[in-house]
C-alpha cells in the first residue's frame, strides 16, 4: 500500500507541475496541452478503439518477435556454446551483430521486404535474436565445468547436461539477454514504425506530429512508457525473481 503511494506520488506531482505550466500561458497550447486535454484525447481514442489498434499492433509485433527469436536464439546459443571450436569464433561475430542491432537494419529491410509489418518484425527479430544468442552463448560458456563433470559422474547424458546444467546455469545471462532484447527491441520498433508502417504507436505519434497534435503525441508517449514498465514488472522481473534470485545467482549484463 505505502509502496503503491510512493510510486504514484511522483507522477502526481509531475502532472500537477505540467498542469501549472500549461495554465501559466507561458507556452502556447499547441506546444504543451494541459493534462486534462491529453486525458480527454486518450478517452476518445480508447472509446473509438484507435488507441487499442495501435497498442495492439505494437504489442503484437513485440510478442511475435519474442516468440520467434527467443527459442531460436536460446537453442542456437546452447548448441554453439557446446561446441568448443565454434563458440570462441562465433562469439565476437554475435557481438558485432549486436552492435549493429536495431534501426540500422531498416533501409536494408525495406529494400528486401518493402514497407510494412514484415520489415518491422524483421528488425525486432534481428535485435532480440542476437542479444539473446550472444548472452546465451556467453552464459553457457561460463557455466563452471565442474558442474557438468559432477552430473556426468551421476550418469548424466548430453540431454541431462543441456537441460539440467547448461540452460539453468546460463539462465542469468539468458534473462539479461531477453531484458536487453526487449529494451532495444521496443526502441527499434518505435523508430521503425515511424518510417515503415501505418499502424503502431510509433506511427501514431509521428503521424500526429504532421498535424501538430501534441495531445495525441503525449497519449502515445505515455502508452509507450506504461507498456514497457508493464512488460518489465509483470513479465521480466517475476521471471528473474523466480529463477536467478531464488538460486542465489547474480544477473550478468552484456550488450
Amino acid at each position, binding site marked *: 500500500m505505502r509502496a503503491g503511494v510512493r510510486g504514484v506520488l511522483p507522477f502526481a506531482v509531475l502532472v500537477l507541475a505540467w498542469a501549472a505550466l500549461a495554465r501559466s500561458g507561458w507556452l502556447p497550447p499547441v506546444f504543451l496541452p494541459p493534462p486534462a486535454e491529453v486525458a480527454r484525447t486518450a478517452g476518445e481514442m480508447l472509446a473509438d478503439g484507435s488507441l487499442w489498434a495501435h497498442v495492439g499492433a505494437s504489442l503484437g509485433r513485440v510478442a511475435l518477435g519474442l516468440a520467434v527469436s527467443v527459442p531460436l536464439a536460446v537453442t542456437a546459443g546452447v548448441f554453439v556454446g557446446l561446441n568448443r571450436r565454434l563458440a570462441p569464433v562465433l562469439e565476437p561475430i554475435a557481438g558485432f551483430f549486436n552492435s549493429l542491432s*536495431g534501426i540500422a537494419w531498416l533501409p536494408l529491410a525495406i529494400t528486401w521486404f518493402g514497407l510494412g509489418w514484415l520489415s518491422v518484425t524483421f528488425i525486432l527479430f534481428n535485435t532480440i535474436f542476437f542479444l539473446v544468442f550472444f548472452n546465451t552463448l556467453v552464459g553457457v560458456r561460463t557455466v563452471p565445468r565442474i558442474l557438468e563433470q559432477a552430473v556426468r559422474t551421476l550418469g548424466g547424458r548430453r540431454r541431462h547436461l543441456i537441460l539440467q546444467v547448461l540452460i539453468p546455469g546460463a539462465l542469468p545471462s539468458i534473462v539479461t539477454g531477453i531484458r536487453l532484447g526487449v529494451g532495444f527491441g521496443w526502441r527499434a520498433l518505435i523508430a521503425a514504425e515511424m518510417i515503415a508502417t501505418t499502424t503502431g*504507436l510509433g506511427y501514431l*505519434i509521428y503521424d500526429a506530429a504532421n498535424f501538430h497534435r501534441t495531445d495525441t503525441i503525449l497519449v502515445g508517449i505515455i502508452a509507450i512508457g506504461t507498456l514497457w514498465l508493464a512488460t518489465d514488472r509483470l513479465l521480466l522481473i517475476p521471471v528473474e525473481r523466480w529463477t536467478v534470485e531464488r538460486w542465489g545467482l547474480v544477473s550478468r549484463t552484456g550488450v
Partner: protein
Amino acid sequence: MGWRAALATWAALLGGVLAAWSLAAATLPMPAYVLPPPTAVLEALVDLARKGILPTYVGESLRRIVQAALVAVAVGVPAGVLLGMSRRAAEFSYPLLSFFQSVSGIAWLPLMLIWFGFGERTILIAVNYTVLFPVVFNALLGVRSVPQIYVNALRTLGASRWRIAWAVLLPGALPSIATGVRLGLAYGWRALIAAEMLVGANGLGFMIFSAQPFHLTARIMLGMGIIGVLWTLLDYFFLRPLEDATIARWGLVQR
C-alpha cells in the same frame, strides 16, 4: 584451442561467407540491388571516401555521440549522485527516472519536432535525452547501493556530507555509473542513427536511409558495416575497459 587455430577458423569462416555471398550475388535470379556483391560494397567505400562524403558523415555522427556522452557524464553523474544522497529524493525520483529512461528519445522525437523544429537541434536533444537518463538512473542506483557501513565509518571520523559524497559515494557508485554510461551510449548510438534517418541532412543514419529509395544497397551495407565497426571499437577500447576497471578496482557494490 590455441589462438592460432581460432584465427584460422575465423579466417576460414570469413572467407567462406565472402565466397558464398559473392556466389549468391552472381547466381541468384534477383535484381542486383537486392544483394550486391562484396566488391560493390568495397567500390562504394572507395567512391564515398574519395568524394569526401564518408569522412564528413562519420565525423558528424561521432561528433554528436561524443557531445552527448560528455553532457551525460558532466550533468548526469552529478545529478544522479546528488539525488542518491538523500533517501527521500531517491525514492521520489526513482519511478520518474525509470519511466523517462524507458521512453526512448526517439519516442519524444515527434514532440521535439514541434518544439525545436526540423533540424540539428532536435537530433542533439533526442540523443542527449537518450544517453542522459540511463546515466542518471544508474548513478542514483549506484549511490544507493553503497553499503551504509562505509558512510557511517566516515561519519564517525567527522567527515562532512560533501567529503562523504566525494570519498565514498562516488567511487562506490562508479561501477554502476560505468554500466549506465555504456547502456546509455548503446541506446544513444541507435537513437542517433534513427534521428539522422528521420531528421538528418548528414551522418551515417542519413547516409543509409537516403540511399534506400535509390536502391543504392551497397552504400546501405557499407554504412551498416561502419556503424557496427565504430560501435565495436568504441565499446571494445573505451566502454568495456571502463566498466571492467571500475568493477575490478571499486567492486565493493553488491550486484
